[in-house]
């Protein structure tokens, strides 16, 4: 049958060179050989890099010359390839290998593994899939969790695992993610799009039009170092422009954050401190001020929004038991003086104001509320859809705000089965359980098979899962509450993990298969996840190290176990796939963006499409709200949502509300026992947990070999802690060792440990001390609300004490104990 693919293939093969004009190509060829070796261009989450290869070894990595603001993390990439934590060969947990589903699961996590051959490993993988499908059916298998795979559109390991396991049988999948779970669920009801992954107003437009730019718990200068695809870093020079405009008094830049962020310091922004987790009371008081002083835009509310009345009744105290959300009401909760709140409200309304929210405030209990309230404030200001006005939830992510070229980008290896194909085990009998689980609730799923939760207007029934498969995904970094996870993992008969380095997920698995790194395979990537700046070639630098294989090879060989390897690979080799993905993009761009034939591109290393077009988010809606209706149930901005109201949830109602948290610092619940709020935001010197194992690079920021815990001078002094001390951080859920970094950037009552620090428990016991400093040893595993059921990682209190006694060595790195 005619598919788009075949049509495009036809287009590709016939698009003759004569019809295409000259290409916009970089002059330097990708490979330049000198006596010191050969320099190759390749791509990564950390940007495009040049690698010097000599004698079959990568000897140096440096940023591409054209990268406007290379990240320091490029210095850590080489350490990913040559690393003692690399998985060298297939391994099985010792007891599991002997006893399989009858094995002792309480020893899972003791890190004792034995080496097996690839044939044994893939046979075991296949046998276990077979056993689980025939014994339990599809509800017994969880293979939906995915993560920040290495870059490369062809080798994207999420797609390989899903296609191969999906060819064998059906399985339980996940919905949402750990970064934006609450935001991507609430904002469709409010602004009609997930927003968190949407393109934002172009930076040149903001710089030209905004009078005030507010970074609300957003630290783009830190987070824009990395990208979902090959990052261009074109966004970062705009922060220099912003700094200059702030210095010249043209733009007022304000950072609403308890901590002095990297962005605040880079741009010279003013800080507006508020107590952690109290954004909503602060914002309600801002709304009260705007309304009571007549600073809100009633005409905008009338034309573009619905449901302002029930909300403003709540603010003015006509609803909610008569509590009026005045600045005086909010001040003691949020720690900001009533006059300061009023001044800030007036400032927001005084001219063009761009609100820029980060993701941290929605990674907490009731994380839906501050995001909804942000949209309400923006609606009251009436600047949504104007250049340099309105609200963004994405400007810290993957180059959002860089004008987009509009070029078509290479597709990816198919995640799905080919059209009309069925799995070997095509039963879709999930025994009455849900087939899709909100991702942050999968540990609850393991602990409560058959249990139910509410989620976004539906009831979820947990399946009885017996086997899990992970590939390029590290749940033992991104999920909360390690000791609860240890209990939950004892429910699993078999855990299979495919990765390139021995992280804590491998440690808690039964079967571990070594994939190679992205630098050991040929691939292609888009340059700029949002800007579509170009396409970058990712030429293999060295052959797969040790016994590792590409994900493509691993899963092709798994499919051979049930006779479907040719269907899996479509009989194409790695380089044929890469060429096809490129040529499909080339034909899609024909007539709009010139691309050279693949062979030429492969030599050049990259192709670029020039500067993109400036753009204003929601301008089309503002221009014509009827034709360009939002994706909300009504098509308008929903300040109150009847749809959500009808769900009847006690933790997410019909309009944004302030609700107390299970744990909150600065006098909130639980602060008498554990007074410090632990924030576990994205790291400055890793990509989540990627690169933590890069030893030399980790040494540049670790403290006594441990992950830093940032603490205020006041809190440190009160506990007799000096900068550089080894400390124990603890609460009722767990304990970890970390190295104290005493910093003026942190206020009293606030500590930070960056997420992604590798979990390294002393032993396999529940409650074991984490020897390196993974903050999720301490975080709470509860859903944000019944609406999103997202992670609440930033609702977490802890205590810090100076560590005394014999110091355990770090167990996180260096792979398993063999035998």
């Amino acid at each position, binding site marked *: 049958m005619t598919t788009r*693919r075949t049509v495009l293939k036809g287009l590709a*093969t016939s698009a003759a060179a004569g019809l295409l004009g000259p290409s916009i190509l970089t002059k330097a060829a990708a490979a330049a050989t000198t006596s010191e070796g050969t320099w190759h261009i390749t791509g990564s989450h950390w940007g495009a890099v040049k690698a010097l290869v000599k004698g079959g070894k990568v000897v140096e990595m440096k940023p591409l010359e054209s990268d406007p603001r290379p990240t320091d993390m490029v210095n850590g990439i080489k350490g990913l390839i040559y690393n003692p934590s690399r998985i060298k060969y297939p391994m099985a947990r010792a007891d599991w290998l002997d006893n399989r589903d009858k094995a002792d699961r309480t020893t899972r996590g003791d890190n004792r593994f034995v080496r097996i051959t690839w044939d044994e490993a893939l046979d075991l993988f296949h046998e276990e899939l077979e056993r689980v499908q025939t014994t339990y059916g599809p509800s017994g298998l969880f293979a939906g969790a995915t993560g920040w795979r290495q870059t490369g559109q062809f080798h*994207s390991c999420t797609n390989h695992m899903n296609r191969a396991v999906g060819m064998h049988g059906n399985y339980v999948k996940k919905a949402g993610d750990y970064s934006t779970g609450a935001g991507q669920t609430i904002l469709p009801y409010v602004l009609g799009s997930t927003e968190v992954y949407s393109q934002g107003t172009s930076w040149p437009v903001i710089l030209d039009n905004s009078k005030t730019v507010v970074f609300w718990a957003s630290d783009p200068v830190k987070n824009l170092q990395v990208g979902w695809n090959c990052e261009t870093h074109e966004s970062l020079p705009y922060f220099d422009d912003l700094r200059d405009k702030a210095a010249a008094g043209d733009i007022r830049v304000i950072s609403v954050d308890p901590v002095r962020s990297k962005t605040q310091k880079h741009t010279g922004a003013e800080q507006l401190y508020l107590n952690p987790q109290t954004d909503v009371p602060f914002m309600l008081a801002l709304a009260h001020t705007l309304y009571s002083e007549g600073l809100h835009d009633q005409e905008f509310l009338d034309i573009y929004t*619905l449901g302002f009345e029930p909300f403003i009744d709540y603010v003015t105290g006509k609803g909610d038991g008569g509590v009026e959300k005045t600045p005086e009401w909010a001040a003691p909760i949020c720690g900001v003086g009533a006059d300061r709140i009023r001044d800030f409200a007036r400032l927001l309304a005084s001219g063009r104001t761009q609100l820029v929210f980060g993701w941290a405030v929605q990674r907490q209990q009731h994380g839906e509320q501050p995001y909804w309230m942000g949209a309400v404030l923006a609606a009251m200001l009436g600047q949504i859809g104007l250049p340099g006005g309105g609200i963004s939830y994405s400007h810290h992510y993957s180059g959002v705000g860089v004008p987009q070229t509009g070029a078509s980008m290479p597709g990816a290896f198919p995640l799905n089965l080919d059209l009309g194909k069925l799995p070997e085990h095509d039963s879709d009998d999930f025994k009455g359980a849900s087939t899709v689980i909100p991702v942050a609730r999968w540990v609850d799923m393991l602990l409560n098979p058959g249990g139910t939760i509410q989620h976004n207007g539906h009831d979820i029934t947990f399946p009885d899962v017996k086997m899990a498969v992970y590939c390029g995904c590290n749940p033992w970094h991104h999920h909360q509450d390690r000791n609860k996870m240890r209990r939950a993992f004892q429910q699993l008969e078999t855990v299979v993990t495919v990765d390139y380095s021995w992280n804590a997920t491998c440690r808690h698995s039964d079967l571990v298969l070594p994939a190679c790194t992205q630098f050991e395979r040929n691939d292609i990537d888009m340059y700029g996840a949002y800007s579509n700046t170009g396409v970058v070639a990712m030429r293999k630098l060295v052959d797969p190290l040790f016994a590792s294989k590409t994900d493509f090879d691993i899963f092709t060989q798994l499919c051979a176990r049930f006779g479907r390897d040719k269907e899996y690979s*479509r009989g194409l080799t790695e380089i044929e796939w890469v060429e096809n993905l490129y040529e499909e993009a080339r034909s899609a761009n024909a007539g709009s963006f010139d691309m050279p034939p693949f062979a030429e591109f492969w030599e050049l290393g990259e192709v670029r499409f020039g500067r993109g077009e400036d753009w204003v988010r929601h301008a089309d809606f503002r221009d014509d709200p*009827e034709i360009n209706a939002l*994706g909300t149930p009504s098509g308008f901005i929903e300040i109150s949502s*009847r749809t959500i109201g009808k769900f009847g949830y006690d933790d997410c109602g019909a309009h944004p509300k302030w609700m107390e948290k299970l744990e909150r610092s600065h006098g909130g619940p639980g602060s008498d026992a554990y007074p410090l709020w632990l924030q576990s935001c994205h790291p400055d010197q890793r990509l989540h947990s990627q690169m933590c194992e890069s030893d030399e690079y980790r040494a540049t920021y670790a403290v006594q070999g441990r992950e830093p815990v940032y603490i205020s001078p006041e809190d440190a002094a009160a506990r007799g802690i000096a900068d550089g001390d080894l400390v124990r951080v603890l609460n009722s859920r767990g304990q970890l060792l970390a190295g104290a970094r005493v910093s003026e950037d942190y206020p009293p009552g606030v500590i930070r440990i960056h997420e992604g620090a590798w979990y390294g428990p002393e032993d396999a016991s529940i409650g074991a001390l984490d020897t390196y400093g993974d903050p999720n040893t301490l975080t709470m595993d509860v859903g944000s609300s019944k609406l999103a059921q997202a992670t609440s990682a930033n609702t977490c209190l802890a205590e810090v004490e100076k560590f005394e006694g014999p110091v355990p060595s770090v167990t996180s790195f260096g792979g398993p104990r063999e035998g």
Partner: protein
Amino acid sequence: MSAKKTLVLFWDTLRSPPATISLGVLAFGGFVTGIIFWGGFNTALEVTNTEKFCISCHEMSDNVYQELQETVHWENRTGVRATCPDCHVPHEWTNKIARKMQASKEVWGKVFGTINTREKFLARREELARHEWARLEANNSLECRNCHDYDSMDWDAMSDEAVFYMQPAAELNTGCIDCHKGIAHHLPEPSGDSPVIAQLEGKAARSLSSGEDYYAYKPVTLFTGADRALPAGNLSLGARVKVLETSGDTVKLSLDAWRKNKGYGRVLYDQFGMNTRVAVLEKDAAGDAALVEAGAAETDDNTGLDWSPVKVTLWADAEGFVADAGLLWDVASESYAASCSGCHAQPDPDHFSTNAWPALFSGMVGFTNMDASEQELVLTYLQNHSSDHSSTH
């Protein structure tokens, strides 16, 4: 003397009545001439069926003939060459004559220089190609199949990739041209038409019957009257209409839909409270009670907005419809699965409600290469297969 003047003179001579010749002489002469002409005609016909004749015009010689020489149909390891008539002239006599009669248009084009420059040729290439594609689609690629046949294919001798694409095509007896457009000459420059719509073009309803339901497979312009003078708006992809009357290539149609009573009522939706678009009207048309007949309003409990049922009667070009919505959904579901699984597993359509899909779709579609028409079709597909339309979720 120019070709145009010669033609005019010849025409004038033919039009003049006979002045001095008797009827008998005229009849006999006609008979004899007929014999001579018949022989001449067949000879001439055969002459026009040679490559030499085809490329005697520089239009063919400079353009498509050059392109052919870059392809496997010109030069290959087995030494078999396909010449112009092998592919472009039917081999069976009646069809051949029919094609030759159509060719009079090409003579006209030659005489008047319709494509006598490269620029003119490129500008018309799409139109010319579409004629040829339509002809091959109509006969299921007969001229290709004179040499290539599914039954004669040795699957074992083919590459895996070729088998991957070819076997499903063989099972459905798909015509060669469906996939292999541009195999012997360059493809037209992209016209801006979505590849998805191009896929559906061959499946469009050839004639519309009164009283039947049809579905728009491409943006269809609506008009306020049968003269199609004043545009009234556009049908959305996937919109269902009932045909009331057909007259030539104009069709009078009706649409049962709903609209929100906030704004000008320009956007029409398929059901009460459901944001699945079926049409967007011009402001004037939306307010014209003669064209848009509104019923009693009902309040949507999920938003508090009032909705009114509307019966819309408008006119459109008869092109742009398919008789079976399944044709649209097949194309859309394939596009959805392929485009939305690059980064993650795509959710099942019935995982979300009709009114939730627009937000989720708009939040993520920027990561795909879908063009505007494809986006519209895929979103409509998702909304029509959402949890509101599913009994299992």
